[in-house]
């Protein structure tokens, strides 16, 4: 019985960074901007939060700085994709590569280390708040999407930008807002990893979680509640593989690939088709 409780608690913890990043991705992608930069955004948030918490001694200040970093990096993605109509996947890839390098470079300069920040004391961590926030954000996101003017515009811009433009919606502005929001949320997800779950930033500490979040978003058909369920499922798989490390006969690698295989299966339409927002990945040219 206790083992099951431990496993479930661990699953919720593992799902938290995924859920935050996936909800971030949801805003961006429902507005029509592909965000495979989630991994890089998480890394930016994780590194900045840990660094600023180290210097300020206050995790909230660290979190705020992390969010600011995420928004800033997302803004770069937005400028490239929305303003300059760069290919969204390529721009996202660039940001992912960039933020594999930037934290390592900076930590070398700040802390004379090869990619890690100094250990933070227990009192300067926030192990609970991001979890609560992540799960509270699920109904909030549902409400924003389905019951507010901003949500309506967001969906319109992602499904049919021409129509939205004709109706007087500023397509670029809505997309910028969505992309920056996704930067903020992904950064909180990253911050949870560095100043919540562990107590420092380590080189490439997201280890592909940005991509699993993306997988959860697709698996969840770009909807908040389904995405949360997907995150919990993937978080459970991760918790299972941690618990089973060295104990069971089943190799961890097989559990680790579950989210990826499931995503491919869903994308191929074998179990329920997952339809992307219609204008996803298509830059919009204003008609005037």
């Amino acid at each position: 019985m206790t083992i099951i409780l431990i496993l479930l608690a661990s699953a919720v913890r593992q799902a938290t960074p995924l859920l935050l990043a996936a909800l971030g991705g949801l805003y961006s992608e429902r507005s029509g901007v592909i965000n495979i930069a989630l991994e890089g955004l998480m890394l930016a948030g994780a590194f900045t939060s840990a660094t600023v918490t180290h210097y300020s001694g206050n995790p909230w200040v660290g979190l705020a700085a992390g969010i600011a970093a995420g928004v800033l990096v997302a803004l770069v993605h937005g400028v490239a994709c929305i303003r300059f109509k760069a290919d969204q996947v390529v721009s996202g890839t660039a940001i992912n590569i960039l933020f594999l390098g930037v934290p390592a470079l900076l930590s070398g300069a700040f802390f004379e280390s090869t990619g890690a920040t100094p250990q933070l004391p227990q009192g300067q961590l926030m192990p609970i708040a991001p979890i609560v926030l992540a799960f509270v954000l699920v109904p909030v996101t549902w409400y924003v999407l389905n019951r507010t003017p901003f949500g309506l515009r967001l969906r319109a811009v992602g499904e049919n930008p021409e129509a939205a433009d004709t109706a007087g919606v500023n397509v670029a502005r809505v997309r910028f807002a969505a992309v920056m929001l996704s930067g903020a949320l992904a950064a909180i997800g990253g911050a949870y990893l560095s100043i919540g779950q562990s107590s420092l930033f380590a080189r490439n500490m997201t280890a592909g979680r940005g991509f699993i979040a993306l997988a959860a978003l697709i698996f969840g058909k770009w909807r908040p509640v389904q995405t949360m369920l997907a995150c919990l499922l993937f978080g459970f798989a991760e918790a299972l593989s941690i618990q089973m490390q060295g104990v069971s006969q089943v190799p961890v690698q097989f559990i680790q690939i579950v989210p990826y295989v499931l995503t491919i299966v869903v994308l191929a339409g074998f179990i329920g088709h997952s339809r992307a927002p219609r204008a996803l990945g298509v830059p919009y040219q204003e008609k005037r």
Partner: protein
Amino acid sequence: MKFLRELLFPLAAVVAAFAVGAVVVLAVGDNPLSTYTLLIGSALTWPDGIGYTLFYATPLIFTGLAVAVAFRCGLLNIGAEGQLYIAAFMTAWVGITLASWPAWLLVPLCFLTALLAGGFWGAVPGVLKARFGAHEVITTIMMNFIAVALASYFTQYHYKPQGDPILETVPIGEGAHIARLGRFVPGFPERIPLNLAFPVALLACLLVYLFLWRTRWGYEIRATGANPAAALYGGIATGKQIVLAMSISGALAGLVAVNEVLGYRYRYYDGFSAGYGFTGIAVALLGRNHPGGVILASLLFGALLRGGLFVDIFTEHVSKDLVMVLQGIIILFVAAEALFRRSSRRRIKSV
């Protein structure tokens, strides 16, 4: 004239990226000029600098070509990383299993394995796209993780030497080794791992060029990439071209195994790729998805990888991660222009 114009924009992107990089170096607390002198200078010494630059450029030529071929068909293959991992493991597996076979048989067999394994790993997302409309970007990302996990599983549980703390397989048979260039080039020491995979990479560039611009299949692939609706209307089975392009793309990425397994480490080494598949995207973009451009861009990134090691050791604060930062910025700059065409193409399709 057209050639010069094609060269101009990538050059501008590189210069701009180095300028931004200089600001980063300055912010970190080092002198940009001396850092860059070290970065480029250490890649140009004979024989070590140039030898290692070419050695690092070799896998990038393969992955750059891989991404470029897919691009020409309108596909973004982010899966070169997974394709090269699966190919490297399978090649090592053949080299281990048939270790006693003679070289004249084993080398071609390993070569073929690299092509087929990479090609298969590329074909799967191709089929998923052509048959079910699954976006190749997402499926190739997922296939990357699956490839790495599978290779690491088989290495750890079935092919690791007893008591070895490193995650690597037992060595392949001697018959599967290919020669280092030091054996043929006078004055070039054999300790430098530059091997026959490098001329193979150059040959691959030539073949890809001939294939894309001098054969019917190549034409059909480019037509599918340029305008799928028109290609379909013109009688081209676009689905088949997508699968073909992804298979060729994967096979090219798979050839990294020739350099890594047959020419360098003589075994599968877990996590050997320094993001070659992703750098391949930068290489293809910077090289304008043209085999000639791919060679030039690979030489640049190869030099950066080599020089990065020296920057790591001989500067006060800057680490080799500077290379990654430069790479990211170069892609961002190139993307904002080069892919404007790609996206405008998509718009035509959607109208």
